[in-house]
């Protein structure tokens, strides 16, 4: 699969400030990275389905918040699961939440679509822990919890 070296970044969170922070952190850490943020996960899902349906599409990293009003993070995962494998093959998902509830981390660990659980907020250190894996898929990510 021919790949660009830098994946796209997508953020689903109803918290506007968090989205701004993510954008800023990603762009400073990985210059040139494309960041798409969505406060409404429904729109975000439409975007993913439209953008990553092709074999030649770029890979993407999705930072997914859990607590959102219309669709929560887990529901977003259910919808994503129904997407074609081609789409799913391009997307790597990390939960990005402020919850310290062990139930949430367990749930994330048990979901095969989820690659990791990142405690808010996103920082350059945490992002770097995710990023190398995007260049070299053979290495599984290590989740850093500050």
């Amino acid at each position: 699969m021919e790949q660009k070296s830098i994946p796209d970044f997508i953020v689903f969170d109803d918290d506007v400030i968090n989205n701004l922070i993510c954008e800023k952190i990603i762009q400073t850490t990985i210059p040139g990275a494309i960041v798409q943020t969505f406060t409404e996960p429904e729109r975000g899902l439409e975007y993913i389905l439209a953008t990553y349906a092709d074999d030649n599409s770029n890979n993407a990293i999705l930072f997914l918040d859990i607590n959102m009003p219309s669709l929560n993070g887990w529901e977003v995962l259910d919808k994503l699961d129904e997407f074609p494998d081609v789409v799913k093959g391009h997307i790597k998902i990390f939960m990005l939440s402020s919850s310290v509830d062990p139930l949430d981390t367990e749930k994330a660990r048990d979901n095969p679509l989820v690659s990791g659980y990142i405690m808010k907020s996103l920082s350059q250190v945490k992002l770097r822990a995710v990023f190398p894996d995007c260049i070299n898929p053979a290495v599984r990510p290590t989740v850093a919890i500050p």
Partner: protein
Amino acid sequence: MDGSDERSPGMTEGIDGQDNLHALINNTSDLIWSVDRNYKLISSNTAFDEMVMHMTGKPIAKGSDVLSDGFTTGQLARFRKSYARAFSGETFKVTEYTAVPEELWSELSFYPIRNGDKVVGTACYAHDITDFKKSQNELIVAHNKLVFHLENTTLGFIEWDDQLHVKSWSKKAEEIFGWTELEFIDLQKSAYSQVYKEDLPWVSKIAHQLANGEIERRSVRHRNYTKDGRVIWCEWFNSVLKDKNGKVMTIMSQVRDITKQKKAEEKIITASHLYAFISQVNQCITHAENEETVIKDACRVAVEFGKFKEAWIGMMGYMDEGCPHSLCEANGAQGQVIQTGNCYVCNDIENDALLLDWKPFVSERGWRSCIILPVKKSGTVGTFNIISSAVNFFQPEEVALLKEAAGDISFSLSVFEKDKHRMLMEDKAVQSGLRLKQAQSIAHVGSWELNFSTGIAEWSEEMCRIYGLDSYENVQSYDAWLSFIHPEDLEYVMKVSKEGERTFSNSSFYHRIIRKNGVIRHILSQAQVEFNKESSAVGLTGVAHDITEMKETEKALAQSEANLLQIMDLMPQSIFVKDYNGKVVFANKSFASLYGLSTKQMINRTLTEIMPVKSEAEYLLHQDRDVILSGEATTTPEFSFTDYGGNKHLFHTLKVPFTVVGTNEKAVLGLSNDITEQKLAETERTRMVADIVRRNKDLEQFSYIVSHNVRAPVANINGITEILQMSGLDKNDRERWIGELASSVKKLDEVIMDLNHILKVTHTESDKKETVKFSELLNDIKLGFNNLILNNGVEIVSDFSAVDEMLTLRSYLYSIFFNLVSNSIKYRRPGIKPVVEITSARLDDKIQLIFKDNGLGMDLKKRGGQVFGLYKRFHWHVEGKGMGLYMVKTQVESLGGKIGISSEVNKGTEFRIEFEMA
């Protein structure tokens, strides 16, 4: 003939003709002769000669006198007269009758014989008409008889045509049926119209067969109607007349009224049934072994032989199997019979005021008449009820016969009664002698007889044994007896016995004796004075009862009972015995103190009388009876009881069936434990546990809030701080991030304020409750939302007619109304006029409030569990913190209520709140 006779003297035609004529004249049996004016025979034929010979015994010769001897005077006179008529020239006929020597009728013809114009004699001709005359007479007689019969017969004659219409209808028929012939024909009545309706089916069949000639005659008996509407029994003899072609011309009916005969027959049958019944009753009585058999058989026989519809004997306090329950009660007619001892006859049950109870059986079981007879044993004790299916059945003769039967039954019952007594008495007498001895020894009773004249008493075997003597030492003096008396009792005994001797009164006294071997016995002595025929006292008889064992047992028993009572009175549990009527038979101190009474005062009181709360008393009585009737113990884990002071107690009670000592009386023994304190502690504990669980849940919820909602702005602050620390941020960028930092800090502050608010709700329960009117509350809220309502064209409809107020915390209820109304407006459906309906309802002892809107609604399948969660939001496009419904739920629950939701996307949402009524 007369011509030939007239012509004969002058006949000259020839020998042959002459001879023939003579032969003819002489061979006829008719008499022919002629006489001259002097009564002399001129000529005669043989038959005449023979007749005269026969009549007179002498031959007559020509020329001799025809009026000769041998005829009777009457005959002679009649002949002379007839001859004289003939001599006067008259031709005529007379009929002559003679009975002697035999009945003989003849017709005599006289023809005068003329010589010129002078009559010279007469020719006579006699013809025997006896046979003719006889048959004519018979005919007349027969005719007269027939007419007589027709006029006097009981038979009516009716002629029908083949269409069964009347052709003729005799007088008698008119008498029988009332209709005249004309009436009947005019009315065009058919033969069927006067046939009784129950008989019509088979009668019409026969009439039809007669009319079409299938049968030629048939006699039948059936009932007919008369003109005046009576029903009579008729016997019909019907026969058919056919023409020569076999076609039916007429049906002849002869009919007679057999009603009386029929009635008489029925009467005979009834009478025979009654006699059969009575004779059977007598047989039963003779063979019956006991009362029950008599009663049972009498009823059976009444139906079987008396042909009655039903019969039963109802005895006071005795229920016969065949007797319908309601009829056994001694009221109405039966009550009257029992009270008066006279029989009651009803010939029309349907219209009898005293037998209203029986009315249903008229149609149900075909009851029409009845007789209720008293059954006596010693006094009237029951009724013999006999039912007939015929109206007016019980006429004086029947009543008399049945009275006799009832009398027989009563007699036999009395006999059984007396018999029973007699046997009992005999039995007693035989046994008593034997028993006396036995009884004395069993009961430790000795007897003695003292003769005043000797001063010596004779003691019974048992008496000797009681006093520790041998049976041969059975003769004792008064002094000897006194020597056995215990010294402490001696004075008393002497006083009592002296008193008895002086007054001749019977005495009974208790004392002790000391046997020769020093053993003390307790004795109850009784003495009775005996008198002779002259009423002077001759002696004393007495009994001595050794009650030592009894005394000792009594003492031990009294001691043990006292112990037991003391123990029971010391017990904190209530112990009681009550009888079936709730009357207290035994009560311990704890039990009595519940009623503010002493244990003695409790005895014979009923709980319904002394318990302050009647419903509790009734419940207890009911339970006691259940235990007594079922014979099974029962445990009531908790029973709320109000004592005499109005204090509530909770009791744990065990009740067991119990028989009161010394009686057969069924009662209930109960043991009650006052568990009020224990229960209170338990309730408190349960409440506390529930409270702890609830608080724990709250804490969990808080930890989540902390984990997420407090952390969210903190995380943002973290992130922004990291960004602010990056190099290469320009001034604008920096300021923008500082602005974001400030808003995150503000958000954190808001969350902390919210938590403070929530904590206030969950922990300030001490606010004063007040009566809050829903309508006023809603008005306040409407004012608060005034702008929002106006801008969005919101319609708020309310109906608090069912219930408009409740005792509650105003601030909470306000917050509940506020949040729900606010939610309904906030989550309205774009393009639809928002309508909020608020109604109240009363459900049993609950107040229900319903908030209904036509807004966005939500998918409860997806979010049902989270609707009332803190910081749970379902619509991203509308501003909200997810706190309102959490607050509503918290406040509803802290007011002791419940909240429920139903919602559908794009239809609307309905919240139902239920509060317990204060």
